[in-house]
């Protein structure tokens, strides 16, 4: 008998490309209970450290996720470099920053598109992804891959970007900026979009901190926390402020991401103007020994890496704590009381990346 409506939401579900499962318990369309389950993407790749040496492991870690792939690579090598206490050439740092910020632009555009799709705004989705393709072209041109770059290595980067291309990138970014403006305007101003996002899934300042939210989810609730302020890679030499919105609802989080696109474009421009000439890598000798925790800012928020090495070519343990993992409690906070129609929105509002989460 139908006391409540129970809906198995996912793992295969058209609105969430990713296999997250929720048992949604509904009354009318109100969600009165939501129990998540994950594990559909769990591969256990962290354990591969026992079979891949610490150079090869870079390629594994990159494939934690195909969206934030570059920063995973960067985070991995940074952690190993942290164990080695290795200083890499400045140009490599800048190049990493450029790619990282490009990744952020692409990731945010991708997310904006998916978000639009979640509330049935198909044309907006298409246009976001159309613009995003321009970034992917830059990736392919500079690294050889559209989504997985394989350019980081312990001690630097594999490929250089010549200054010509850097200029070209800035030009492309000018176009992207222009076109994104038209699109982010829709997210900011459109009546129907606001109707769907305003006041939905509110996470207050304190709640956001308590549940351990990170990234735009956290900043959308007014907490100015951005790991790039740690000054890793070239961020120490760049000028930026974390982007913060107060309301803590889907709208605020959308706004944060929309504005971060421009921030990232600006950072890349700064990088291009400041990038020094020189080497792009240093030789790495010997094997790492020790342990290290490093934190980076992914498009989705803070990512934490932990590595422990014992002086052989295999690490003993490598672990990634990804932003989505940290944001799931926030999602669980937001779900009860929303409408079924809001569920995809809320799921997307933390920008879930299940493959990151489960590794």
């Amino acid at each position, binding site marked *: 008998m139908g006391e409540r409506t129970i809906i198995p939401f996912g793992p295969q579900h058209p609105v969430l490309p990713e296999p997250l499962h929720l048992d949604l318990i509904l009354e009318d369309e109100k969600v009165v209970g939501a129990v998540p389950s994950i594990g559909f993407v769990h591969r256990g790749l962290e354990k591969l450290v026992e079979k891949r040496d610490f150079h090869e492991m870079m390629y594994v870690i990159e494939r934690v996720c195909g969206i934030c792939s570059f920063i995973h690579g960067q985070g991995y090598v940074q952690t190993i470099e942290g164990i080695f206490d290795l200083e890499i050439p400045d140009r490599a740092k800048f190049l990493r920053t450029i790619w990282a910020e490009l990744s952020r632009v692409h990731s945010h555009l991708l997310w904006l598109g998916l978000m639009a799709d979640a509330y049935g705004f198909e044309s907006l989705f298409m246009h976001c992804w159309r613009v995003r393709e321009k970034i992917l072209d830059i990736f392919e041109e500079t690294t050889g891959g559209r989504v997985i770059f394989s350019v980081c290595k312990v001690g630097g980067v594999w490929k250089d970007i010549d200054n010509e291309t850097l200029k070209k990138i800035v030009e492309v970014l000018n176009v992207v900026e222009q076109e994104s403006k038209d699109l982010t305007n829709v997210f900011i101003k459109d009546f129907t979009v606001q109707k769907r996002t305003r006041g939905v899934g509110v996470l207050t300042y304190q709640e956001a901190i308590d549940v351990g939210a990170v990234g735009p989810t956290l900043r959308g609730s007014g907490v100015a926390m951005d790991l790039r302020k740690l000054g890793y890679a070239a961020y120490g030499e760049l000028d930026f402020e974390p982007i913060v919105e107060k309301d803590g609802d889907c709208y605020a989080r959308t706004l944060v991401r929309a504005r971060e696109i421009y921030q990232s474009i600006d950072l890349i421009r700064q990088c291009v103007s400041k990038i020094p000439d020189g080497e792009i890598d240093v030789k790495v000798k010997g094997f790492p020994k020790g*342990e290290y*925790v490093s934190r980076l800012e992914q498009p989705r928020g803070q990512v*934490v890496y932990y590595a422990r090495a014992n002086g052989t070519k295999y690490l003993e343990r490598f672990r990634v704590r990804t932003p989505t993992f940290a944001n799931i409690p926030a999602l669980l906070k937001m779900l009860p009381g929303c409408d079924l129609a809001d569920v995809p929105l809320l799921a997307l509002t933390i920008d879930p990346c299940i493959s990151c989460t489960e590794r």
Partner: protein
Amino acid sequence: MAEVQTFQPVTASEIVDAAKNMLNEGYRLIQLCCTKTPSEMDIIYTFEKTDLQSQNFKLPVNIGDTLPSISSVFFAAFLYENEIHDLYGVNFTDMAVDFKGTFYETSVKQAFSITVAEDKE
């Protein structure tokens, strides 16, 4: 660039209080990370402040040990604890949400509890 990192040791009985302390000092939980090597096994608790300062605790454990959950202090901890339970076979009491071993349904149970080095021995 490398910041100085400390791993402050704690014991199972202290961990909840340590977590409460951290909470009072304005820290929040960043991660629980379990590590198993052939010789030792420990859980690292990482906390962080909104000004990005961080603090690590290291708690030595063994497979089959039962630890108190800190999810009453930091709600988010239940995810890590369930994960560690499923992958390492460390039990936690009073988790905010207890998946009872269905967090990751892996074909190899508690896969991380054996390391390659041990395997070879």
